Each structure stands twice: as C-alpha cells, then as structure tokens.
C-alpha cells in the first residue's frame, strides 16, 4: 500500500496535564507552525486517529481512559508522550495518585521532553511518530497480504511482540480498583 505517512491524524488526550503542554499542542496547528501542511488533522475520534498524543502523567482516574482510547484506535497506531510528565511523571512522579509516565499504562513510541514541550519539539516528535507509523503500516500490509484481506478485520501483526503486558496500573500502585485510596 502507498504512503500513509502523508496523512497522520492525531488524537490529543490530557491525562492530568496542567494545560501547559496542551496549549503548545494546539499552538502546533496555528498559522505560525501549521502542522496541517504535513497532512496532520486534529481529530476528536479514536476510531479515526493514527497517532495518540498524551500530555500529563497518568493518575488513578485517567489510567482506564488512556487504555480505552488506545484500544479503540485502529491498527497501525503510534503513541507520543508529550511533556516530561507524560514521559516519566515529572515533578508529580512520587505523588500518591500518579503512576508515572504514560508508558506505565500503554506502550509509548516517542517521548517528547520539556516543561512545557516546545511546539518545535512536538512537531519533531510527530515527524518521528509518522516515520514509525509508515513502518508499522508496511508491516501491517505485509501481514494482510500473507493472511488474506479478511485479516484486516482483526489484523494484529506486531501487537504481541511490541506491546507485551502493559503494567497493570492498580497492581503497580499496590491498590485495587475497589479501594482506590489504598487503605
């Protein structure tokens, strides 16, 4: 199949960000940076998105949402963690309700550091993610060629190798979902 890298559609989710990185993500779409010249569309729908952009560290409330959004996205998909909180948890790392970066819940492909991340580095991260998207799409097409067109319905070429078992959030914190306070 052709060049999917020309049409990366983004989905932006704020896990627990202070809105610093969110403003910078939106700045990427303004006339100064104009990410749309790369074909980037900021879509609001997980089913139509290719790249998941997460800002802020993951907390007890947003962990399930992040997982669900990731599961709803069609393959091939790429995850970008924007800002230091999304990368590692940042200054909130040791807070009682923060599990750390996005990679404690879902597999992350590109890390964009910064507090807040600069639009230049966000676009740089997206360009890196687009390259991964193309690479994964080529693998995806190869898999479908081998297994027939019906494989497109539940094609899963790289999931087992790449995703592994994302750490269960509540296990990682030593808490259960019924007992979120951890008492």
């Amino acid at each position, binding site marked *: 199949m052709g060049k999917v890298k020309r049409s990366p559609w983004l989905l932006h989710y704020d896990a627990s960000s202070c809105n610093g990185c969110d403003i910078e993500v939106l700045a990427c779409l303004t*006339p100064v940076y104009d990410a*749309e010249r790369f074909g980037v*569309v900021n879509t609001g729908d997980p*089913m*139509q998105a290719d790249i998941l952009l997460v800002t802020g560290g993951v907390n007890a409330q947003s962990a399930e949402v992040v997982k669900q959004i990731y599961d709803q996205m069609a393959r*091939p998909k790429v995850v970008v963690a924007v800002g230091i909180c999304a990368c590692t948890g940042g200054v909130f790392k040791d807070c009682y309700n923060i599990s750390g970066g996005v990679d404690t819940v879902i597999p992350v492909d590109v890390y964009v550091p910064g507090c807040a991340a600069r639009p230049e580095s966000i676009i740089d991260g997206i360009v890196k993610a687009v390259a991964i998207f193309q690479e994964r799409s080529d693998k995806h097409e190869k898999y479908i060629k081998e297994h027939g067109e019906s494989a497109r319905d539940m094609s899963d070429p790289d999931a087992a190798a790449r995703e592994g078992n994302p750490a269960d959030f509540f296990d990682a914190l030593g808490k259960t979902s019924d007992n979120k306070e951890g008492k």
Partner: protein
Amino acid sequence: MRILMPILYLLLAPLVGGLLDGMDRKISARMQRRVGPPLLQPFYDVQKLFAKQRIVVTNSQTFLMITYLVLMIATGALFYSGADMLMCFFLLSTAGIFLYFTAVVTDSPYSYIGGQRELFQEMCCEPAVLLTAIGFYILEDTFQTRDLIHADRSAIVALPGFFIAFLFILTIKMRKSPFDESTSHHPHQELVKGVTTELGGGNLALFQITEWYENVLMLSVVALFILNRNPWSIPCAVLVVLATYFLEILIDNTSARMRSQKMLQLSWAVTIAAAGINLVILILVR
C-alpha cells in the same frame, strides 16, 4: 451520450470532488494565513483510511454505508443520463436516509445525535430542492435534464430566486459552517464527528467518497441554471460553479455554527421568500 455521461460521472466525479475538497482545504488554510496541506491531501487521506485495520461497530454498518454510496452514484448517473430531475431528487433523499441508518444503527449517543440532525438538515433542504425542480418545469415544461440543457436561454434569467434558495441550502447539503449540524471536520464544535463518530478506516473512506459524489452532483444542479444551447454557456457554467464553491468556503470560514432551530427557520424563510416569490411571478407572467 446517455450511456457515456453516467460512466464519465462514475469515473470522474470522485476525482473532481476530491480535487475540489483539496482546493477547499488549501484555500481555507490560506484564508487563515497558513500554508495548508497539499492539493491531493484528500486522496492521501482516503488511501490511508483503506489501509487501516477495519473496525466495525455493527455488522450492518458497512452494508448501509455501501448502499448510501451506491444510491448516491445512481442519483448522479440518472442526472447525467438526462433523466427526470424530480426522480433524481427523490433518490437523493433515499440515499440520505441510509446515512441516517448508518449513524443510528451503532447505538452511540454522539452518532445518534448526528443522525437526528442529518434528518433535520434533509428537512431544511427538501422544500428548496423540490421547488427548484418545479421552477425548471414551469419554465421549460419538462423535468428531463437532457432537454433542460438545450434551453433557449439560461434558466437563471427567469429563476434568480430559485438560484438564491438553492445556493442557501447548498451550504446545508455540503455540511459546511454555519450549518455543519450533523458532522464537522473541525474539532472546535460542540458535536465534532456526529454521523461519522462510529465510522473508522474503510467505512470513513466510503463516506468521504460519497461526499465527493454528492458535491459534484449538487454543483451540477448549479450548472444547470446556467447551461443553454449555446456552447459558450459551458465555460460560463464552470466559472459560476467555481465561484459558488469559493463562496461556500468563504462562508464556512467566516461563520460559527448555528442552532438547528434557527437553521430550519432561516432556510425555510429564504426558500419561501426567494423561490416562492419567484414562483408566483413565474406563474403570473406565463
């Protein structure tokens, strides 16, 4: 000619529609002082959507979407074969109903609201669309498009009110702001994806292609107002169609979404005021 034109429509309408869509995005970007995506961006998008994993919420969804596409192509093919214009518009409404089914069959509340609004938009458009056909009939005594394009003079001379009413509902038909009630391409509206919420991958690509077919068909009706037996009317019609499309882009970029009640009031008011008065004059002058 009666075989050739529908085949040309079938093959060329997605190309023309896609290019118009690309122009739309480019011109919109320039209006916002951005560089904007390449002209062929809509084709890249559709190609990518077909390459993605196929996620289907309900099995009947894909079938309904394909029916919507097929009915839309049938409408356009009928129009271009020179057949009954009224029949085309009835078929067009039937196609619209299948889009509504596609949206509501998924059980998603957002998709459902989008579907309801899609029906509402149909309701706003229908009087103007039907009156347009009636206007042509009173003027030329025929509904057949193959006869209408060989008129002695352009229909717009006698039907300016109908033309204004049709231009008005064109914004609704193209789902452009301020009337992008059922779905929006921009993520700053209160209901972002609407009818397309539960469409992903190939299904969304089909929706996109159907939009292209529909846009070309609606712009062809605009061209019908201009065309007459003089061959020079063809370039004139193309110019008017391009100007109309530019006007739609301009309106899209300079207006915020309107409430659906307001849309109904406005569209019917414009239809009655412009097309209705034109109709009365037409009947009296005859």
